């Protein structure tokens, strides 16, 4: 018996009613899409497995129209069926929940989001067509509406402060789609020797009215949105503060949850101080280490592959996806919980992670960790600690000091020649710090690694 079922009180009428309106909104959006498709998409030949003989030409729009009609029916049945929400049938089916729950874990999440990221780049000309974008939008919205029918999912996603994150996902998704669409179009134009999108219609126009009116409309729309948002959703206010009652989980504000997620893999001095500082310094250093003069003032991918892949990898899988993980999938005791799983405070997760020093001395050498005699002088104690952690220290030193010249001689050879010593060293170190998170993740999952260097005596764990 899966635990989430027991805790799953049935749907409430207000949820079903609200979902009805969402489906109606989807219906209206798709009705507009049918109209567009009818004008642009042309016909497709259907034979229905020989049922129609050689096949029949039908407009693509008619397929969308069928989907659209189904959305209308689903929407209306939600609105009429909300009286008896307990027995309402249109909900996330168990045969979908179970495999999603079973497959969910931090490894799958990170590997999955990285795979999607790579696929996004490789297939950038495929998924940036309007139709593909529309299909993706519909899929994600249907996944969301269906998932809302699950009690545990609703508890987490529906928290007032979590709603902006759901919005952010769609907005970031949309703008990533838009940027890739423009980039591929520009790259195509460049290859064909045609002027870029940004070079067409680039005459000077008067700021009044062209820009001033856009700004005015933007301000009105944003104001209206904020007020509507404020009316629909009340700002959160929990119990009065009490230093005696620690909530479990205790979470930082949502935009810092990517950093809080790093605490799983690094100690606070790294995850909370060093790495955030490196992120900020790294961001500020970007204009000074990017020597590529191309791609100034237009969207492109081919002309700035390295820069765009690096930045996007940092922003999408390592920042946005980590926020999603930290917000929606980390429950009590910062344990991982699947999307449709009850946040059980008593869930136990085995912590059998080991340090590099333990692995070396216990497994390889077959002896106890070296410990200084309790009455030893300070230099002796330090000597013992260094002896105990020698392998980890060597590894970290090699990572930070041997890799940059090694990379300069191999993969980054061209960069090194063009950038000069100082710029290159900044770039190499920023890359190494950025990759330290995924590297530590993989080591944790593959080898149960806790710390590479573990010197708790000095609060120095890496």
């Amino acid at each position: 018996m899966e635990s989430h079922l027991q805790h799953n009180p049935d749907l409430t009428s207000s949820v079903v009613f609200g979902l009805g309106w969402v489906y109606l909104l989807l219906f209206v959006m798709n009705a507009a899409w049918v109209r567009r498709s009818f004008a642009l998409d042309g016909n497709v030949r259907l034979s229905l497995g020989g049922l129609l003989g050689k096949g029949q030409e039908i407009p693509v729009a008619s397929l969308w129209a069928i989907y659209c009609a189904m959305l209308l029916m689903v929407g209306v049945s939600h609105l009429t069926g909300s009286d008896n929400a307990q027995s309402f049938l249109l909900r996330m089916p168990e045969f979908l929940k179970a495999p999603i729950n079973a497959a969910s874990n931090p490894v799958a999440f990170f590997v999955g989001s990285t795979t999607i990221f790579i696929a996004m780049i490789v297939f950038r000309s495929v998924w940036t067509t309007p139709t593909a974008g529309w299909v993706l939008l519909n899929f994600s919205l249907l996944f969301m509406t269906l998932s809302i029918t699950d009690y545990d999912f609703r508890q987490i996603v529906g928290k007032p402060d979590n709603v902006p994150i759901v919005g952010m996902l769609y907005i970031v998704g949309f703008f990533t789609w838009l940027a890739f669409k423009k980039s591929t179009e520009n790259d195509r134009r460049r290859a064909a020797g045609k002027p870029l999108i940004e070079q067409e219609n680039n005459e000077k126009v008067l700021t009044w009215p062209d820009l001033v009116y856009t700004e005015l409309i933007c301000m009105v729309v944003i104001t209206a949105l904020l007020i509507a948002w404020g009316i629909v959703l009340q700002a959160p206010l929990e119990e009065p503060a009490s230093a005696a009652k620690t909530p479990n989980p205790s979470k930082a504000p949502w935009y810092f949850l990517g950093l809080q997620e790093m605490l799983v893999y690094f100690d606070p001095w790294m995850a909370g101080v060093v790495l955030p500082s490196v992120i900020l310094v790294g961001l500020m250093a970007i204009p000074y280490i990017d020597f590529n003069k191309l791609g100034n003032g237009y969207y492109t991918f081919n002309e700035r592959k390295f820069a765009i892949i690096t930045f996007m990898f940092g922003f999408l899988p390592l920042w946005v996806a980590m926020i999603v993980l930290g917000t929606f999938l980390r429950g009590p005791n910062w344990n991982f919980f699947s999307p449709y799983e009850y946040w059980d405070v008593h869930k136990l997760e085995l912590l059998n992670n080991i340090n590099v020093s333990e692995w070396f001395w216990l497994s390889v050498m077959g002896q106890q960790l070296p410990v200084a005699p309790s009455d030893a002088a300070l230099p002796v104690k330090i000597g013992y600690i260094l002896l105990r952690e020698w392998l980890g220290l060597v590894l970290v030193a090699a990572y930070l000091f041997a890799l940059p010249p090694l990379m300069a001689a191999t993969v980054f050879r061209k960069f090194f020649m063009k950038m000069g010593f100082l710029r290159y060293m900044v770039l190499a170190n920023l890359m190494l710090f950025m990759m330290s998170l995924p590297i530590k993740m993989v080591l944790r999952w593959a080898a149960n690694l806790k710390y590479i260097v573990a010197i708790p005596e000095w609060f120095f764990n890496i």
Partner: protein
Amino acid sequence: MSVGDYIRGSQIWKSIFRHPAPVDRRNRIVVMLTNFFLHLHPVSIKQQGIALSYTWCMGGITFFLFLVETITGVLLMFYYRPTLQFAFNDILALRDVTTLGIMREVHRWGAHAMVITVWLHMYRVFLTGSYKPPREFNWVIGVLLLVLTLLLSFTGYLLPWDQLAIWAITVGSNMARATPFLGYEGPGAQLLNIGGYDLITSGSDARFLLLGGRFVSEATLNRFYILHCVAIPLVVSLLIAIHFWRVRKDGGISQPL
């Protein structure tokens, strides 16, 4: 003569606006030069620099949200008192009984939205290569503004003084005690001692400086309130002014000169 013409012909109107309505080319140019708020803009601008699908309008929206936050924030300051006795109850009253208590909702959702629009603004600037020469330094100022936006949001998070607030700030500020050398649980802090006396203790480290105490307390509330309402907004305003000024001096939002 219609009433409208009478008003527009009056000395008061002319003293304020100086020029006829921007209905013809000449006055559309002049209005940009003689109006304080409009003079942030150039008189004319490249079409691509204002195409929505190119700019996403995210920088502009971020600035507008900053204004919304300032206005709603000032209104909230009339009502809210940052003390243990009143803080929570004032927020409760804003929710339940105060006329226009929705200002708190607008303020909070505007803050979340502002964090997101700052990220998207940076995303767009990066993807269009708009940080490239001659705009390198403006990108640096932009990163500082990102940090300050996050700090504004973080300091504001504490003010409702509910469970969500103090524990989020506790979790966030716990990081400070692990600051290398400056946090009492940070690597290297033990080295800073004179004659056996530790300089960095839980009563003198980076976290203590941030919180005004060893844990999130009334002193923290006061500290964060001042940071949130006065100190950070002042710095942000200055940096925004420089940011905008540099956009003009560097030749628009994007593209080589």
